[in-house]
Protein backbone atom coordinates (compact mmCIF):
# COMPACT_ATOMS: atom_id res chain seq x y z
CA UNK A 1 0.00 0.00 0.00
CA UNK A 2 2.40 2.66 -1.21
CA UNK A 3 0.12 5.06 -2.93
CA UNK A 4 1.64 6.78 -5.93
CA UNK A 5 0.42 10.25 -6.62
CA UNK A 6 -0.74 11.39 -9.98
CA UNK A 7 1.69 13.59 -11.86
CA UNK A 8 -1.01 15.43 -13.80
CA UNK A 9 -2.35 18.62 -12.29
CA UNK A 10 -6.13 19.09 -12.08
CA UNK A 11 -7.55 20.98 -15.04
CA UNK A 12 -11.21 21.27 -14.15
CA UNK A 13 -12.58 23.65 -11.52
CA UNK A 14 -15.53 22.48 -9.45
CA UNK A 15 -18.62 24.36 -10.65
CA UNK A 16 -21.49 22.13 -9.51
CA UNK A 17 -22.04 21.29 -5.86
CA UNK A 18 -22.21 17.65 -4.81
CA UNK A 19 -25.97 17.47 -5.22
CA UNK A 20 -25.62 18.92 -8.70
CA UNK A 21 -22.90 16.43 -9.60
CA UNK A 22 -24.99 13.55 -8.31
CA UNK A 23 -27.95 14.72 -10.29
CA UNK A 24 -25.92 14.93 -13.49
CA UNK A 25 -24.46 11.49 -12.73
CA UNK A 26 -27.93 9.93 -12.47
CA UNK A 27 -29.28 11.80 -15.47
CA UNK A 28 -26.48 10.69 -17.79
CA UNK A 29 -26.49 7.12 -16.44
CA UNK A 30 -30.21 6.83 -17.07
CA UNK A 31 -29.93 8.37 -20.53
CA UNK A 32 -27.19 5.87 -21.41
CA UNK A 33 -29.41 3.04 -20.24
CA UNK A 34 -32.25 4.40 -22.33
CA UNK A 35 -30.11 4.45 -25.49
CA UNK A 36 -29.74 1.17 -27.41
CA UNK A 37 -26.36 -0.35 -26.39
CA UNK A 38 -24.84 -0.01 -29.88
CA UNK A 39 -25.78 3.70 -29.94
CA UNK A 40 -24.28 4.62 -26.55
CA UNK A 41 -21.03 5.94 -27.95
CA UNK A 42 -22.94 8.03 -30.44
CA UNK A 43 -25.09 9.41 -27.65
CA UNK A 44 -22.00 10.31 -25.57
CA UNK A 45 -20.31 12.01 -28.53
CA UNK A 46 -23.42 14.08 -29.13
CA UNK A 47 -23.68 14.94 -25.45
CA UNK A 48 -20.04 16.05 -25.28
CA UNK A 49 -20.44 18.17 -28.41
CA UNK A 50 -23.62 19.80 -27.11
CA UNK A 51 -21.93 20.60 -23.78
CA UNK A 52 -18.89 22.05 -25.60
CA UNK A 53 -21.21 24.39 -27.43
CA UNK A 54 -22.84 25.36 -24.13
CA UNK A 55 -19.47 26.00 -22.49
CA UNK A 56 -18.80 28.43 -25.34
CA UNK A 57 -15.05 28.64 -24.77
CA UNK A 58 -12.41 26.91 -26.96
CA UNK A 59 -9.78 26.73 -24.28
CA UNK A 60 -12.09 25.18 -21.69
CA UNK A 61 -13.34 22.62 -24.19
CA UNK A 62 -9.74 21.66 -24.96
CA UNK A 63 -9.03 21.27 -21.25
CA UNK A 64 -12.12 19.10 -20.82
CA UNK A 65 -10.96 16.88 -23.68
CA UNK A 66 -7.53 16.59 -22.10
CA UNK A 67 -8.91 15.80 -18.62
CA UNK A 68 -11.22 13.14 -20.03
CA UNK A 69 -8.39 11.59 -22.07
CA UNK A 70 -6.20 10.92 -19.06
CA UNK A 71 -6.07 7.60 -17.20
CA UNK A 72 -8.40 5.72 -19.54
Amino acid at each position, binding site marked *: *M*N*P*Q*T*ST*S*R*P*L*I*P*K*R*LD*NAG*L*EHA*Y*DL*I*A*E*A*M*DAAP*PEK*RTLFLAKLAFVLANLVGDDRQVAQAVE*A*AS*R*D*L
Partner: protein
Amino acid sequence: MHQPDAQPRPSIFYDYKVHPFRSPPALQGTPDAASVAIVGAGPVGLLLALRLAQFGTWSVVLEQELQVSHGSRAIVLTRRSMEILQQAGVAPRFLQKGLPWANGRSFYRGQEVYRMVMPHSEDDRFLPGLNLQQQYIEQYLVEACEASGMVDIRWGSKVIALQNEPGGATLRVDTPAGEYDLTADYAVAADGGRSTIRRLMGLRMEGRAYAGNFVIADIAADLGLPTERLCFFDPEWNPGNNVLVHREPDGIWRLDFRLPEGETAEQALEPARLSDRIDKILAMLGKPAPWKLDWATVYTANTLTLPDYVVGRVIFAGDAAHLLPIFGVRGANTGVQDADALAWRLAMAARGAPAGLLATYSHERVQAAREICEEAGKSTRFMTPPTEGFALMRDAVLSLTLSEDFPKDLLHWRTSRPHFYADSPLNSFPEENAAFAGGPGCGEPLANVRIGPDDFLLDHLTEPGFHLIAFASSAEAGPDLADFLRACEPLPLMRVLVAPAFGEDLRALADVCVADPQGRVAARYAANAGTAYLVRPDGHVCARWLSAGADDVSHAFAIAAGAAS
Protein backbone atom coordinates in the same frame (compact mmCIF):
# COMPACT_ATOMS: atom_id res chain seq x y z
CA MET B 1 -40.03 -28.94 20.34
CA HIS B 2 -37.46 -26.20 19.83
CA GLN B 3 -33.89 -27.48 20.22
CA PRO B 4 -31.41 -24.59 20.14
CA ASP B 5 -27.76 -25.35 19.53
CA ALA B 6 -26.12 -25.86 22.94
CA GLN B 7 -22.55 -26.08 21.63
CA PRO B 8 -20.61 -22.81 21.90
CA ARG B 9 -20.21 -21.36 18.40
CA PRO B 10 -16.67 -21.68 17.05
CA SER B 11 -14.57 -18.52 17.10
CA ILE B 12 -10.87 -17.80 17.34
CA PHE B 13 -11.31 -14.59 19.32
CA TYR B 14 -14.67 -14.71 21.11
CA ASP B 15 -15.52 -17.07 23.94
CA TYR B 16 -19.22 -17.87 23.53
CA LYS B 17 -21.20 -18.36 26.71
CA VAL B 18 -24.13 -20.77 26.40
CA HIS B 19 -26.93 -19.35 28.53
CA PRO B 20 -29.15 -21.90 30.23
CA PHE B 21 -32.77 -22.35 29.21
CA ARG B 22 -34.91 -21.90 32.33
CA SER B 23 -38.39 -23.36 32.34
CA PRO B 24 -40.88 -20.50 32.96
CA PRO B 25 -43.82 -20.88 35.39
CA ALA B 26 -46.23 -21.12 32.45
CA LEU B 27 -44.90 -24.60 31.69
CA GLN B 28 -45.99 -25.64 35.17
CA GLY B 29 -49.47 -24.32 34.43
CA THR B 30 -49.30 -20.83 35.93
CA PRO B 31 -50.66 -18.25 33.45
CA ASP B 32 -47.93 -15.95 32.18
CA ALA B 33 -48.33 -12.28 31.35
CA ALA B 34 -45.97 -9.38 30.71
CA SER B 35 -46.46 -5.72 30.18
CA VAL B 36 -43.95 -5.74 27.31
CA ALA B 37 -42.67 -8.82 25.50
CA ILE B 38 -39.72 -8.33 23.17
CA VAL B 39 -39.02 -10.96 20.53
CA GLY B 40 -35.29 -11.14 19.77
CA ALA B 41 -32.20 -10.48 21.86
CA GLY B 42 -30.19 -8.76 19.13
CA PRO B 43 -28.74 -5.30 19.74
CA VAL B 44 -32.15 -3.69 19.21
CA GLY B 45 -34.25 -5.91 21.49
CA LEU B 46 -31.63 -5.77 24.24
CA LEU B 47 -31.15 -2.01 24.11
CA LEU B 48 -34.92 -1.53 24.14
CA ALA B 49 -35.23 -3.75 27.23
CA LEU B 50 -32.44 -1.86 28.96
CA ARG B 51 -33.97 1.54 28.22
CA LEU B 52 -37.41 0.29 29.31
CA ALA B 53 -35.86 -0.81 32.62
CA GLN B 54 -34.46 2.69 33.07
CA PHE B 55 -37.94 4.11 32.56
CA GLY B 56 -39.23 1.67 35.19
CA THR B 57 -40.90 -0.82 32.84
CA TRP B 58 -40.36 -4.57 33.16
CA SER B 59 -39.98 -6.65 30.05
CA VAL B 60 -39.59 -10.23 28.94
CA VAL B 61 -37.14 -10.88 26.10
CA LEU B 62 -37.68 -14.08 24.11
CA GLU B 63 -34.61 -15.32 22.23
CA GLN B 64 -34.55 -18.52 20.21
CA GLU B 65 -30.80 -19.04 20.59
CA LEU B 66 -28.77 -19.71 23.75
CA GLN B 67 -25.90 -17.42 22.79
CA VAL B 68 -25.09 -14.10 21.18
CA SER B 69 -24.60 -13.25 17.50
CA HIS B 70 -22.97 -15.77 15.22
CA GLY B 71 -20.05 -13.81 13.78
CA SER B 72 -19.10 -10.18 14.21
CA ARG B 73 -21.83 -8.83 11.84
CA ALA B 74 -22.35 -5.12 12.65
CA ILE B 75 -18.95 -3.82 13.69
CA VAL B 76 -19.22 -0.02 13.59
CA LEU B 77 -21.10 2.09 16.12
CA THR B 78 -21.62 5.73 15.19
CA ARG B 79 -21.24 8.71 17.51
CA ARG B 80 -25.02 8.96 17.83
CA SER B 81 -25.18 5.30 18.89
CA MET B 82 -22.50 5.97 21.49
CA GLU B 83 -24.45 8.96 22.81
CA ILE B 84 -27.50 6.72 23.15
CA LEU B 85 -25.44 4.02 24.84
CA GLN B 86 -24.13 6.68 27.22
CA GLN B 87 -27.72 7.52 28.16
CA ALA B 88 -28.25 3.79 28.66
CA GLY B 89 -25.32 3.80 31.08
CA VAL B 90 -23.13 1.34 29.18
CA ALA B 91 -20.75 3.55 27.17
CA PRO B 92 -17.61 2.99 29.33
CA ARG B 93 -17.67 -0.74 28.66
CA PHE B 94 -17.91 -0.15 24.91
CA LEU B 95 -15.13 2.43 24.93
CA GLN B 96 -12.84 0.15 26.89
CA LYS B 97 -12.97 -2.51 24.21
CA GLY B 98 -13.86 -0.70 21.00
CA LEU B 99 -11.51 0.98 18.52
CA PRO B 100 -12.40 4.62 17.80
CA TRP B 101 -11.78 6.15 14.37
CA ALA B 102 -12.54 9.18 12.24
CA ASN B 103 -10.94 8.76 8.84
CA GLY B 104 -10.95 6.66 5.75
CA ARG B 105 -8.86 6.33 2.63
CA SER B 106 -9.93 5.20 -0.80
CA PHE B 107 -7.65 3.83 -3.47
CA TYR B 108 -7.97 3.33 -7.20
CA ARG B 109 -5.30 1.83 -9.43
CA GLY B 110 -2.80 1.99 -6.57
CA GLN B 111 -3.36 5.69 -6.00
CA GLU B 112 -5.05 7.30 -3.00
CA VAL B 113 -7.95 9.15 -4.63
CA TYR B 114 -10.04 10.14 -1.64
CA ARG B 115 -9.43 10.85 1.99
CA MET B 116 -12.57 10.67 4.07
CA VAL B 117 -12.50 12.87 7.15
CA MET B 118 -15.66 12.44 9.19
CA PRO B 119 -16.87 15.54 11.01
CA HIS B 120 -15.56 15.79 14.54
CA SER B 121 -15.29 18.79 16.81
CA GLU B 122 -13.92 19.40 20.28
CA ASP B 123 -17.56 19.51 21.45
CA ASP B 124 -17.99 15.83 20.68
CA ARG B 125 -17.29 13.31 23.41
CA PHE B 126 -17.24 10.38 21.00
CA LEU B 127 -15.39 9.94 17.75
CA PRO B 128 -17.48 9.38 14.58
CA GLY B 129 -16.95 5.61 14.68
CA LEU B 130 -16.21 2.90 17.22
CA ASN B 131 -15.41 -0.57 15.94
CA LEU B 132 -16.70 -3.41 18.08
CA GLN B 133 -17.90 -6.87 17.12
CA GLN B 134 -21.62 -7.56 17.54
CA GLN B 135 -20.86 -10.39 19.98
CA TYR B 136 -19.47 -7.82 22.42
CA ILE B 137 -22.24 -5.32 21.72
CA GLU B 138 -24.82 -7.96 22.65
CA GLN B 139 -22.82 -9.35 25.58
CA TYR B 140 -22.47 -5.93 27.22
CA LEU B 141 -26.17 -5.23 26.73
CA VAL B 142 -27.13 -8.65 28.14
CA GLU B 143 -25.00 -7.97 31.22
CA ALA B 144 -26.54 -4.53 31.71
CA CYS B 145 -30.05 -5.96 31.31
CA GLU B 146 -29.29 -8.62 33.90
CA ALA B 147 -27.85 -6.04 36.30
CA SER B 148 -30.98 -3.88 35.97
CA GLY B 149 -33.05 -6.65 37.57
CA MET B 150 -35.98 -5.61 35.37
CA VAL B 151 -35.41 -7.69 32.25
CA ASP B 152 -36.30 -11.37 32.06
CA ILE B 153 -34.22 -12.75 29.17
CA ARG B 154 -35.55 -16.15 28.20
CA TRP B 155 -32.94 -17.97 26.15
CA GLY B 156 -33.92 -20.90 23.94
CA SER B 157 -37.45 -19.52 23.54
CA LYS B 158 -38.74 -19.31 20.00
CA VAL B 159 -41.94 -17.49 19.09
CA ILE B 160 -43.92 -19.56 16.61
CA ALA B 161 -47.39 -18.00 16.57
CA LEU B 162 -49.07 -14.78 17.52
CA GLN B 163 -52.50 -13.37 18.17
CA ASN B 164 -52.75 -9.61 17.84
CA GLU B 165 -55.88 -8.45 19.68
CA PRO B 166 -57.18 -5.01 20.64
CA GLY B 167 -56.18 -5.40 24.30
CA GLY B 168 -52.84 -7.15 23.83
CA ALA B 169 -50.85 -9.79 21.99
CA THR B 170 -50.46 -13.45 22.83
CA LEU B 171 -47.26 -15.14 21.77
CA ARG B 172 -46.91 -18.89 21.39
CA VAL B 173 -43.43 -19.80 22.61
CA ASP B 174 -41.67 -23.06 21.72
CA THR B 175 -38.91 -24.21 24.10
CA PRO B 176 -36.79 -27.29 24.85
CA ALA B 177 -39.38 -28.11 27.53
CA GLY B 178 -42.49 -27.61 25.39
CA GLU B 179 -44.78 -24.79 24.29
CA TYR B 180 -46.57 -22.11 26.28
CA ASP B 181 -48.48 -18.86 25.77
CA LEU B 182 -47.28 -15.48 26.92
CA THR B 183 -49.75 -12.60 26.94
CA ALA B 184 -48.40 -9.08 26.71
CA ASP B 185 -49.93 -5.63 26.60
CA TYR B 186 -47.42 -4.89 23.85
CA ALA B 187 -45.23 -7.21 21.80
CA VAL B 188 -42.14 -5.84 20.06
CA ALA B 189 -40.82 -7.61 16.99
CA ALA B 190 -37.05 -7.14 17.24
CA ASP B 191 -36.50 -10.50 15.64
CA GLY B 192 -34.18 -9.41 12.85
CA GLY B 193 -34.12 -9.41 9.07
CA ARG B 194 -35.95 -12.70 8.71
CA SER B 195 -38.56 -11.65 11.27
CA THR B 196 -40.92 -14.46 12.20
CA ILE B 197 -43.47 -11.93 13.44
CA ARG B 198 -43.45 -10.04 10.15
CA ARG B 199 -44.05 -13.31 8.33
CA LEU B 200 -46.76 -14.51 10.73
CA MET B 201 -48.61 -11.21 10.24
CA GLY B 202 -48.20 -11.34 6.47
CA LEU B 203 -46.61 -7.88 6.29
CA ARG B 204 -44.59 -6.83 3.26
CA MET B 205 -41.68 -4.45 3.12
CA GLU B 206 -41.50 -1.71 0.47
CA GLY B 207 -38.44 -0.65 -1.49
CA ARG B 208 -35.88 -2.54 -3.50
CA ALA B 209 -33.22 -5.19 -3.31
CA TYR B 210 -29.97 -4.64 -5.18
CA ALA B 211 -28.26 -7.18 -7.35
CA GLY B 212 -24.88 -8.45 -6.27
CA ASN B 213 -23.52 -10.47 -3.42
CA PHE B 214 -20.86 -9.37 -0.98
CA VAL B 215 -18.54 -11.51 1.08
CA ILE B 216 -17.63 -10.59 4.63
CA ALA B 217 -14.61 -12.38 6.04
CA ASP B 218 -13.11 -11.80 9.47
CA ILE B 219 -9.48 -12.81 9.80
CA ALA B 220 -6.94 -12.69 12.59
CA ALA B 221 -3.72 -11.22 11.23
CA ASP B 222 -0.96 -8.94 12.35
CA LEU B 223 -1.27 -6.13 9.81
CA GLY B 224 0.01 -3.25 11.91
CA LEU B 225 -2.34 -0.76 10.23
CA PRO B 226 -4.15 2.07 12.05
CA THR B 227 -7.90 2.12 12.71
CA GLU B 228 -9.42 3.70 9.61
CA ARG B 229 -11.70 2.58 6.86
CA LEU B 230 -9.89 1.49 3.69
CA CYS B 231 -11.61 1.15 0.37
CA PHE B 232 -10.14 -0.19 -2.86
CA PHE B 233 -12.13 0.50 -6.00
CA ASP B 234 -11.93 -1.86 -8.93
CA PRO B 235 -8.85 -3.86 -7.83
CA GLU B 236 -7.00 -5.77 -10.54
CA TRP B 237 -7.79 -9.16 -9.01
CA ASN B 238 -11.54 -8.42 -8.82
CA PRO B 239 -12.36 -6.00 -11.69
CA GLY B 240 -15.25 -3.66 -11.06
CA ASN B 241 -15.78 -4.88 -7.50
CA ASN B 242 -14.72 -2.93 -4.45
CA VAL B 243 -12.95 -4.09 -1.32
CA LEU B 244 -13.42 -2.61 2.15
CA VAL B 245 -11.13 -3.18 5.10
CA HIS B 246 -11.94 -2.38 8.73
CA ARG B 247 -10.00 -3.05 11.90
CA GLU B 248 -11.75 -4.81 14.79
CA PRO B 249 -10.64 -5.40 18.40
CA ASP B 250 -8.71 -8.57 19.31
CA GLY B 251 -6.44 -8.40 16.24
CA ILE B 252 -9.29 -9.12 13.82
CA TRP B 253 -9.70 -7.54 10.38
CA ARG B 254 -12.93 -7.31 8.43
CA LEU B 255 -12.57 -7.83 4.70
CA ASP B 256 -15.62 -7.06 2.62
CA PHE B 257 -15.82 -7.44 -1.15
CA ARG B 258 -18.30 -7.84 -3.93
CA LEU B 259 -18.46 -11.06 -5.87
CA PRO B 260 -18.00 -11.17 -9.62
CA GLU B 261 -21.31 -11.25 -11.48
CA GLY B 262 -22.92 -14.67 -11.57
CA GLU B 263 -20.92 -16.24 -8.75
CA THR B 264 -23.02 -17.91 -6.05
CA ALA B 265 -22.60 -17.64 -2.28
CA GLU B 266 -21.57 -21.31 -2.09
CA GLN B 267 -18.87 -20.82 -4.71
CA ALA B 268 -17.59 -17.68 -2.98
CA LEU B 269 -17.28 -19.43 0.38
CA GLU B 270 -15.39 -22.44 -0.98
CA PRO B 271 -12.30 -22.49 1.26
CA ALA B 272 -9.71 -22.55 -1.56
CA ARG B 273 -11.33 -19.71 -3.46
CA LEU B 274 -11.88 -17.61 -0.35
CA SER B 275 -8.35 -18.04 0.92
CA ASP B 276 -6.89 -17.14 -2.49
CA ARG B 277 -8.87 -13.91 -2.41
CA ILE B 278 -7.85 -13.12 1.14
CA ASP B 279 -4.20 -13.55 0.10
CA LYS B 280 -4.80 -11.19 -2.81
CA ILE B 281 -6.34 -8.55 -0.54
CA LEU B 282 -3.43 -8.76 1.89
CA ALA B 283 -0.99 -8.47 -1.01
CA MET B 284 -2.88 -5.41 -2.21
CA LEU B 285 -2.55 -3.95 1.30
CA GLY B 286 1.17 -4.57 1.09
CA LYS B 287 0.85 -6.91 4.10
CA PRO B 288 1.18 -10.48 2.89
CA ALA B 289 0.98 -11.75 6.48
CA PRO B 290 -0.16 -15.17 7.71
CA TRP B 291 -3.83 -15.15 8.71
CA LYS B 292 -6.57 -17.32 10.18
CA LEU B 293 -10.24 -17.17 9.26
CA ASP B 294 -12.76 -16.58 12.05
CA TRP B 295 -16.03 -16.28 10.16
CA ALA B 296 -17.25 -15.59 6.65
CA THR B 297 -20.66 -14.99 5.15
CA VAL B 298 -22.39 -13.56 2.10
CA TYR B 299 -24.89 -10.71 2.11
CA THR B 300 -26.88 -8.58 -0.32
CA ALA B 301 -27.84 -4.90 -0.22
CA ASN B 302 -31.47 -3.88 0.33
CA THR B 303 -33.33 -0.66 0.93
CA LEU B 304 -36.58 -2.00 2.33
CA THR B 305 -38.93 -0.85 5.06
CA LEU B 306 -42.35 -1.72 6.42
CA PRO B 307 -44.75 1.17 5.80
CA ASP B 308 -45.94 1.15 9.41
CA TYR B 309 -44.08 0.00 12.54
CA VAL B 310 -47.10 -0.14 14.84
CA VAL B 311 -49.74 -2.70 13.92
CA GLY B 312 -52.30 -3.09 16.70
CA ARG B 313 -50.40 -4.24 19.76
CA VAL B 314 -47.32 -5.31 17.80
CA ILE B 315 -44.45 -2.89 17.23
CA PHE B 316 -41.52 -3.39 14.86
CA ALA B 317 -37.94 -2.20 15.41
CA GLY B 318 -34.50 -2.82 13.90
CA ASP B 319 -33.98 -5.22 11.02
CA ALA B 320 -37.48 -6.64 11.53
CA ALA B 321 -38.79 -3.22 10.50
CA HIS B 322 -36.30 -2.37 7.76
CA LEU B 323 -33.39 -3.84 5.84
CA LEU B 324 -30.73 -1.30 4.96
CA PRO B 325 -27.39 -1.54 3.17
CA ILE B 326 -24.39 -1.81 5.43
CA PHE B 327 -22.48 0.87 3.46
CA GLY B 328 -22.52 3.81 5.82
CA VAL B 329 -22.95 1.42 8.77
CA ARG B 330 -26.71 1.71 8.74
CA GLY B 331 -27.99 -1.66 9.94
CA ALA B 332 -27.40 -1.71 13.65
CA ASN B 333 -27.06 2.06 14.08
CA THR B 334 -30.51 2.71 12.67
CA GLY B 335 -31.86 0.01 14.99
CA VAL B 336 -30.21 1.67 17.99
CA GLN B 337 -32.07 4.88 17.15
CA ASP B 338 -35.31 2.89 16.77
CA ALA B 339 -34.88 1.36 20.22
CA ASP B 340 -34.17 4.74 21.78
CA ALA B 341 -37.14 6.38 20.04
CA LEU B 342 -39.45 3.55 21.09
CA ALA B 343 -38.43 2.89 24.70
CA TRP B 344 -39.80 6.00 26.39
CA ARG B 345 -43.02 5.97 24.43
CA LEU B 346 -43.59 2.31 25.14
CA ALA B 347 -42.90 2.85 28.85
CA MET B 348 -45.51 5.62 28.84
CA ALA B 349 -47.99 3.56 26.79
CA ALA B 350 -47.58 0.66 29.21
CA ARG B 351 -48.67 3.10 31.92
CA GLY B 352 -51.73 4.15 29.95
CA ALA B 353 -50.56 7.07 27.78
CA PRO B 354 -52.80 7.69 24.75
CA ALA B 355 -52.28 5.26 21.86
CA GLY B 356 -51.39 8.19 19.59
CA LEU B 357 -48.00 8.44 21.27
CA LEU B 358 -46.87 5.09 19.85
CA ALA B 359 -48.14 6.09 16.43
CA THR B 360 -45.65 8.96 16.49
CA TYR B 361 -42.84 6.41 16.85
CA SER B 362 -43.91 4.89 13.55
CA HIS B 363 -44.32 8.33 11.97
CA GLU B 364 -40.78 9.38 12.88
CA ARG B 365 -38.93 6.15 12.30
CA VAL B 366 -40.60 5.10 9.02
CA GLN B 367 -39.69 8.52 7.67
CA ALA B 368 -36.12 8.09 8.94
CA ALA B 369 -35.91 4.68 7.24
CA ARG B 370 -37.26 6.12 3.97
CA GLU B 371 -34.66 8.90 4.03
CA ILE B 372 -31.96 6.31 4.70
CA CYS B 373 -33.21 4.17 1.81
CA GLU B 374 -33.01 7.21 -0.47
CA GLU B 375 -29.50 8.19 0.67
CA ALA B 376 -28.20 4.67 0.88
CA GLY B 377 -29.63 4.00 -2.55
CA LYS B 378 -27.23 6.60 -3.95
CA SER B 379 -24.21 4.99 -2.27
CA THR B 380 -25.40 1.58 -3.33
CA ARG B 381 -25.71 2.72 -6.93
CA PHE B 382 -22.04 3.68 -6.76
CA MET B 383 -20.87 0.55 -4.94
CA THR B 384 -22.98 -1.89 -6.96
CA PRO B 385 -24.05 -0.20 -10.20
CA PRO B 386 -27.41 -1.66 -11.14
CA THR B 387 -27.08 -1.09 -14.91
CA GLU B 388 -24.49 -0.59 -17.64
CA GLY B 389 -25.15 3.17 -17.59
CA PHE B 390 -24.42 3.44 -13.87
CA ALA B 391 -21.37 1.19 -14.21
CA LEU B 392 -19.97 3.46 -16.94
CA MET B 393 -20.59 6.57 -14.85
CA ARG B 394 -18.86 4.99 -11.88
CA ASP B 395 -15.86 4.07 -14.04
CA ALA B 396 -15.80 7.59 -15.49
CA VAL B 397 -15.78 9.18 -12.03
CA LEU B 398 -13.09 6.83 -10.77
CA SER B 399 -10.89 7.55 -13.78
CA LEU B 400 -11.37 11.30 -13.38
CA THR B 401 -10.43 11.21 -9.69
CA LEU B 402 -6.90 10.14 -10.67
CA SER B 403 -6.21 13.66 -11.93
CA GLU B 404 -9.20 15.83 -11.00
CA ASP B 405 -10.54 16.92 -7.62
CA PHE B 406 -14.04 18.05 -8.52
CA PRO B 407 -15.77 14.63 -8.51
CA LYS B 408 -14.00 13.20 -5.44
CA ASP B 409 -16.85 13.67 -3.02
CA LEU B 410 -18.89 11.22 -5.09
CA LEU B 411 -16.57 8.53 -3.72
CA HIS B 412 -17.85 9.11 -0.22
CA TRP B 413 -21.01 7.32 0.78
CA ARG B 414 -22.95 9.11 3.45
CA THR B 415 -22.70 7.62 6.87
CA SER B 416 -25.54 6.81 9.25
CA ARG B 417 -26.49 9.96 11.12
CA PRO B 418 -29.01 11.00 13.74
CA HIS B 419 -32.38 11.91 12.29
CA PHE B 420 -34.11 15.25 12.63
CA TYR B 421 -37.79 14.78 13.39
CA ALA B 422 -38.60 18.20 11.99
CA ASP B 423 -42.27 17.44 11.33
CA SER B 424 -42.91 15.23 14.33
CA PRO B 425 -46.41 15.62 15.78
CA LEU B 426 -44.69 15.92 19.17
CA ASN B 427 -43.09 19.27 18.28
CA SER B 428 -44.87 22.49 19.19
CA PHE B 429 -44.42 26.27 19.25
CA PRO B 430 -43.04 26.46 15.67
CA GLU B 431 -42.85 30.26 15.64
CA GLU B 432 -40.85 30.38 18.85
CA ASN B 433 -38.60 27.69 17.38
CA ALA B 434 -38.03 29.71 14.22
CA ALA B 435 -37.10 32.81 16.23
CA PHE B 436 -33.77 31.29 17.30
CA ALA B 437 -30.60 32.36 15.51
CA GLY B 438 -28.97 28.96 16.04
CA GLY B 439 -28.90 25.92 18.30
CA PRO B 440 -30.70 22.58 17.76
CA GLY B 441 -34.22 23.16 16.46
CA CYS B 442 -37.39 21.20 17.11
CA GLY B 443 -36.91 17.57 16.22
CA GLU B 444 -33.12 17.69 16.28
CA PRO B 445 -31.05 15.80 18.83
CA LEU B 446 -29.31 17.88 21.48
CA ALA B 447 -25.91 19.19 20.47
CA ASN B 448 -23.11 18.15 22.78
CA VAL B 449 -20.84 20.86 24.19
CA ARG B 450 -17.51 20.52 25.93
CA ILE B 451 -17.64 22.37 29.25
CA GLY B 452 -14.35 21.29 30.75
CA PRO B 453 -11.73 18.57 30.66
CA ASP B 454 -13.60 15.28 30.32
CA ASP B 455 -16.87 17.11 30.94
CA PHE B 456 -19.62 17.48 28.33
CA LEU B 457 -23.18 18.76 28.42
CA LEU B 458 -24.74 15.38 27.64
CA ASP B 459 -22.92 13.83 30.61
CA HIS B 460 -25.33 15.82 32.81
CA LEU B 461 -28.53 14.64 31.14
CA THR B 462 -28.49 10.92 31.88
CA GLU B 463 -31.58 10.84 34.13
CA PRO B 464 -34.28 8.90 32.23
CA GLY B 465 -37.17 11.19 31.28
CA PHE B 466 -37.93 14.64 29.88
CA HIS B 467 -35.52 17.49 30.51
CA LEU B 468 -36.09 21.21 30.57
CA ILE B 469 -32.84 23.05 29.90
CA ALA B 470 -33.06 26.64 31.10
CA PHE B 471 -30.42 29.34 30.89
CA ALA B 472 -29.37 31.99 33.42
CA SER B 473 -26.87 34.78 32.77
CA SER B 474 -25.46 35.21 36.26
CA ALA B 475 -24.98 33.34 39.53
CA GLU B 476 -28.17 34.86 40.93
CA ALA B 477 -31.61 34.19 39.50
CA GLY B 478 -33.69 37.19 38.58
CA PRO B 479 -37.29 37.04 39.89
CA ASP B 480 -38.69 36.00 36.50
CA LEU B 481 -36.39 33.03 36.14
CA ALA B 482 -36.99 31.99 39.75
CA ASP B 483 -40.76 32.12 39.24
CA PHE B 484 -40.46 30.20 35.99
CA LEU B 485 -38.37 27.40 37.47
CA ARG B 486 -40.63 27.13 40.53
CA ALA B 487 -43.72 26.98 38.35
CA CYS B 488 -42.16 24.11 36.37
CA GLU B 489 -41.40 22.09 39.46
CA PRO B 490 -44.66 20.07 39.46
CA LEU B 491 -44.06 18.87 35.88
CA PRO B 492 -42.60 15.36 35.61
CA LEU B 493 -39.30 16.49 34.12
CA MET B 494 -35.76 17.28 35.18
CA ARG B 495 -35.02 20.98 35.38
CA VAL B 496 -31.49 21.54 34.12
CA LEU B 497 -30.11 24.99 34.70
CA VAL B 498 -27.14 26.28 32.73
CA ALA B 499 -25.45 29.32 34.30
CA PRO B 500 -21.97 30.87 34.34
CA ALA B 501 -21.79 30.16 38.08
CA PHE B 502 -24.16 29.15 40.85
CA GLY B 503 -25.15 31.08 43.94
CA GLU B 504 -26.91 29.08 46.63
CA ASP B 505 -30.38 30.38 45.72
CA LEU B 506 -29.91 29.60 42.08
CA ARG B 507 -28.70 26.09 42.83
CA ALA B 508 -31.83 25.38 44.84
CA LEU B 509 -34.05 26.14 41.85
CA ALA B 510 -32.90 23.28 39.63
CA ASP B 511 -32.56 19.49 39.69
CA VAL B 512 -29.33 19.58 37.71
CA CYS B 513 -26.88 22.48 37.62
CA VAL B 514 -24.47 22.85 34.72
CA ALA B 515 -21.74 25.43 35.23
CA ASP B 516 -20.90 27.09 31.93
CA PRO B 517 -18.25 29.65 32.92
CA GLN B 518 -17.20 30.44 29.35
CA GLY B 519 -20.75 30.56 28.05
CA ARG B 520 -20.01 27.82 25.51
CA VAL B 521 -23.31 26.02 26.09
CA ALA B 522 -25.32 29.25 25.92
CA ALA B 523 -23.57 30.20 22.67
CA ARG B 524 -24.15 26.79 21.05
CA TYR B 525 -27.83 26.96 22.03
CA ALA B 526 -28.22 30.62 20.97
CA ALA B 527 -29.60 31.21 24.47
CA ASN B 528 -30.10 34.28 26.64
CA ALA B 529 -31.23 34.50 30.24
CA GLY B 530 -34.72 32.95 30.32
CA THR B 531 -34.27 30.78 27.22
CA ALA B 532 -35.45 27.19 27.61
CA TYR B 533 -35.40 23.95 25.61
CA LEU B 534 -37.85 21.11 26.24
CA VAL B 535 -36.12 17.81 25.49
CA ARG B 536 -37.70 14.38 25.04
CA PRO B 537 -36.31 11.33 26.83
CA ASP B 538 -34.55 10.29 23.62
CA GLY B 539 -32.63 13.58 23.58
CA HIS B 540 -34.57 15.27 20.75
CA VAL B 541 -35.76 18.84 21.20
CA CYS B 542 -39.58 19.17 21.02
CA ALA B 543 -40.05 22.87 21.86
CA ARG B 544 -37.89 25.88 22.68
CA TRP B 545 -38.46 29.49 23.63
CA LEU B 546 -36.07 32.44 23.66
CA SER B 547 -38.03 33.59 26.67
CA ALA B 548 -39.97 30.77 28.26
CA GLY B 549 -43.14 30.76 30.36
CA ALA B 550 -44.28 27.88 32.56
CA ASP B 551 -47.72 27.59 30.91
CA ASP B 552 -46.10 27.17 27.51
CA VAL B 553 -43.74 24.51 28.87
CA SER B 554 -46.64 22.69 30.43
CA HIS B 555 -48.59 22.83 27.15
CA ALA B 556 -45.60 21.65 25.08
CA PHE B 557 -44.98 18.86 27.56
CA ALA B 558 -48.57 17.64 27.24
CA ILE B 559 -48.22 17.55 23.44
CA ALA B 560 -44.89 15.70 23.58
CA ALA B 561 -46.28 13.24 26.10
CA GLY B 562 -48.96 12.25 23.63
CA ALA B 563 -52.00 14.33 24.54
CA ALA B 564 -53.39 15.68 21.26
CA SER B 565 -52.28 19.23 20.44
